[in-house]
């Protein structure tokens, strides 16, 4: 294939490129902070932007595998972790902004988590992402073996709760959350189709698949 050489270059550069792309929302926020671009209510603005960036990165993460399969560009696989870690970075900033907003008052925070469904959903999603970030190292992948993949399926639940969190918090303009819901729906439908098609067929062992992805 004529593309072999560019594919080799792409494989080398795709991860740094993914980091740069994944950090664009953060760069924009920091630039905004220095140029007065955060508006009249910076806490609100940063909360919205980091939440949006979290969902965006989660969707990109979930899109990596379908795109890789569709195009055959296996070198894309290494970006999955990059985007996933970016999602975790943004959810941490999102949570931190929320904690600042609540004045780090445990009483207020508990009241929110316990009584307000959109906060409950968002906070649960954060808790689900936490072990995924902690086990994102190569060593963890090796140590956990098959269980690693099972564990990391939690990302589907986390992304779903994240979308629900967004839907439940808007006042009346559902456009953005529904776009996320549609994208999430498509990405999950592709997986369900794959799982259904894969049932009964011989499945490639996960270890071999990972080896192919990392190469």
């Amino acid at each position, binding site marked *: 294939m004529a593309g072999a050489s560019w594919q080799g270059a792409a494989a080398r550069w795709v991860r740094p490129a993914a980091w740069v792309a994944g950090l664009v929302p953060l760069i924009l926020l920091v630039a905004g902070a220095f140029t007065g671009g955060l508006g009249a209510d910076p806490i*609100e603005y940063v909360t919205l932007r980091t939440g949006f960036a979290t969902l965006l990165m989660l969707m990109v993460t979930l899109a990596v595998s379908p795109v890789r399969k569709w195009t055959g560009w296996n070198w894309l696989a290494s970006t999955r972790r990059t985007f996933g870690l970016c999602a975790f970075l943004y959810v941490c900033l999102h949570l931190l902004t929320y904690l600042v907003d609540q004045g780090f008052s445990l009483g207020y925070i508990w009241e929110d988590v316990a009584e307000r469904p959109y906060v409950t959903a968002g906070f649960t999603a954060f808790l689900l992402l936490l072990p995924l970030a902690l086990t994102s190292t190569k060593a963890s992948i090796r140590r956990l073996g098959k269980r690693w993949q099972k564990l990391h399926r939690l990302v589907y639940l986390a992304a779903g709760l994240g979308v629900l969190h967004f839907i439940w918090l808007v*006042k009346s303009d559902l456009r953005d959350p529904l776009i996320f819901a549609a994208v999430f729906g498509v990405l999950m439908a592709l997986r369900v189709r794959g799982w259904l098609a894969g049932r009964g067929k011989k499945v490639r062992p996960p270890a071999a698949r990972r080896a192919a992805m990392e190469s």
Partner: protein
Amino acid sequence: MLIKKPEIPSSEITPEAAYLSRRQFFGASAAALAGAAVPALAACDTNEGVAKGAALDTLDAGPQRDELTPLADVTSYNNFYEYGTDKEDPARTAPGLLKTRPWTVVVDGLCDRPGRYGFDEFVRGTRQVDRTYRLRCVEAWSMVIPWSGIPLRDVIARARPRAGARFVELTTLLDPQQMPGQRRSVLAWPYVEGLRMDEAMHPLALLATGLYGRPMPAQNGAPIRLVVPWKYGFKSIKSIVRIRFTDTQPRTSWNLSAPREYGFYANVNPQVDHPRWTQARERRIGEWRRRPTLMFNGYPEVASLYSGMDLRRNY
């Protein structure tokens, strides 16, 4: 209707040049605070809050101090869904799109003197007043804004409402050319708000035509908007083209959109939470820490309007 003399201390209106930006304020605050013992708010009909030099604008002293929200924030952080649902949208698009001259306000319904007024004609002949009010959004943020305008009750008196008129319904301009947000059905357009007649007759209710001593900016609801400071901001309808007297409770936009979340009364009430968030606290724009929300947004003189009403049910 019995109006108590207001209990809350309030503001002095200063000329535009004297408004201090927030940053300058911090430097000047120590000196300025000395002059902060201010008279009561213009809850009565006279224009009490007129400037006395460059005194500091405060509604209150101490930890619950009310400083004017800087003009830049007042005019760049707006909920005006006719221009988009992001806070930054109205400032970006409204000034270029909203044509405020000519502007017609129709007064009709159950009244003896209905009329169709051009803007100047509508405003002429009524007292011009300056009022500095807190504005508390249902989203739990707040500002302090120096408005100017005409008391709603004067407009109502001019129309001579009939005995059967129990409510006032106010309507925003409907024109998707000028208000592109109306092309999307995020709310039932045109925007409609309403007040019970006694609420509308309360001296605090203002039809504002300007802020910070200048004509009303487009993004704040030019050329004329309602300000009812004891209610959540969505009651203070913008860019009004119609005032109608009715015998039935108006079908208001947010109430139609989500009746469980946005009631007809929508009085600021720290004890009654929005179903999805607390109303006990608010962020004053420009401050980091949230502050407690005050009952009726700190305007206890309206309490008598609701005596005997269950405010938990009539939210």
